[in-house]
């Protein structure tokens, strides 16, 4: 993560003095954006840079759902299964995705292209059902739209 330090320095300048601990979340996010996940030596590097206890970073990585210490597929499909999305057919969508991709939620396709997860409420209930593909919200989904989306993503893959 050392190549990200100049960026981190700029970020640090936006915070008041003494806020090194606060930098853990944004630095971890940036490291994950860069590598796809957070590796063990990223943690060591961040400990050195921020001067926070190593255990704090390990706790943060395990506590928040968005952080991961292992790589996943090229496209992370996160389908919300909370109340409104379930009321608007999310369960059928998730079953369909699972069948189509041949993996259960929590797994990655053997070719490493798709990882399927379920998610809790994404704050998009008005356009339910919602599926995230990496960082992007895909709203008002249906089985047809999902199939089209998968084709498009496979094309990119």
């Amino acid at each position: 993560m050392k190549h990200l330090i100049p960026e981190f320095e700029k970020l640090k300048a936006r915070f008041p003095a003494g806020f090194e601990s606060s930098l853990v979340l944004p630095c971890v996010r940036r490291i994950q954006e860069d590598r796809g996940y957070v590796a063990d030596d990223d943690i060591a590097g961040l400990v050195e840079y921020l001067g926070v206890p190593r255990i704090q970073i390990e706790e943060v990585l395990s506590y928040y759902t968005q952080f991961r210490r292992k790589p996943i597929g090229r496209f992370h499909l996160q389908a919300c299964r909370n109340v409104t999305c379930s009321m608007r057919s999310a369960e059928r969508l998730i079953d369909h995705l699972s069948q189509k991709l041949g993996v259960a939620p929590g797994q990655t396709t053997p070719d490493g292209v798709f990882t399927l997860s379920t998610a809790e409420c994404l704050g998009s209930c008005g356009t339910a059902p919602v599926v995230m593909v990496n960082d992007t919200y895909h709203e008002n989904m249906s089985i047809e739209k999902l199939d089209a989306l998968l084709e498009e993503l496979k094309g990119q893959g």
Partner: protein
Amino acid sequence: MPEIFINGQPVQAEAGQTVMQAALANGFYIPYFCWHPELSIAGNCRICTVQVEGRSWVEISCNMPVTEGLHVLTDSDLVREHRKATMQFITLNHPVDCGICDKAGECTLQDYHFAYNGSASVSREPKVHATKFHDLSERILLDNERCILCSRCVRFTREISKSNALGIKNRGDVSLVRAADDSPLDADPYSDNVIDICPVGALLSKPFLHKARVWYLKPTPSICPGCERGCSVNIWHRKAEWHLRALDPAQNTSIARVTPLENPAVNGPWICNKGRDLAQVFERPRADRAMQKGKPVELASALLAARNLIGEAKRVVILVSSWGSNEELAACRDALNGRFATFIKRDHAPLPGERIEDDLLIRPDKNPNTAGARALFGEASLREPAFEPDTDLVLVWGEGCNFATLPAGAKIIFLNSYLQPENGHADVFIPVSVQTERAGTYTNFAGVVSAFEPCFPKQPTVANAQDVFAAFTQDAVARS
């Protein structure tokens, strides 16, 4: 000084206290798991709830500031109902391991179950499983199923030992206490305190694992000799009435474990790991026969021979042990000082890798009674020993003397507890008792005098150094 009322009784509280502190200080018991007088307030176990009179709900007392005129109830029906519910929540997924758990007999969860719940589980769900017997460090075993996530261990490493070794990973009911990946708990010399403060049998001492049920053991107050702090400790060994009828008598005269003995003047409730390992110090192979130049003799003969050597010598140098108790050191001075040059020997030096000093407990002098010796023999005796050319007798008391540095032609009287080759080279060798075999006091670096009590009897062929010195007085020497 706010006045509050606990169960209707007036209590003088102190400004800034919590209701929990005021209650405990005035003889009212409020149960607690996560609260600890030396740690920050976590307020997560929820067992310490009380009811403010007039309110229809309960609140935790460990975080409730006292205010003038506050009326609280610690044992109302509502409090009892919630305490029982909290116990049901805590034991929801707690394994009934008591039969195989070392903590049984000193377990807060057991005690509170009987005091505040006493019922079988009301849940029909299978218990959630977690890691059992996880190696938290080389010394400590962690059973996550037994853990109630009170976070005392985490707060200890963050606030007291400052190793930041422990944390809680994941969340919800899959939370797990864990050490950081690079195992910093091994490097924390205070790590084992988390075993004491764990209110359940989640954190266990590996050296003590499955050694003995605690109700068969007796704690004897003693002092850790590991450094000049002289932390108060309890040395645990089998109670006389629970002695094992075993072939090896050592089973009944060995140290089962060492724990802190709370002493606000010296160490608070903590000790460092060195104190936990006192068995490794006191149970090294012992010298139990007096000798003259390696030949075993009766103790009386050895004492007589030693007295003769003292009487005949032209110039004597004495190296006293910084592990001698104040009483032994006084006997030595009364008998021999004034006549002979005396130097205080630091029996033990720091081991490679051992922490020298910190601002918690650990002190640089790794001997328990240098201060006591200094008080008796004077500042000058702290210097490196200097041997006048005509020194012809050296009395060495205790370990740590490099015999190669002694004058070549001088005779040697050696008082020692442990088997070492030099015992056989001494002109007179007298085996002496160790700390756990007698009573005495040490003076720590700050001048605090503490007492230790005997745990075990000494062998009849082993002498107490105090008696040996009494045998070396001028009169005794003259008479011999």
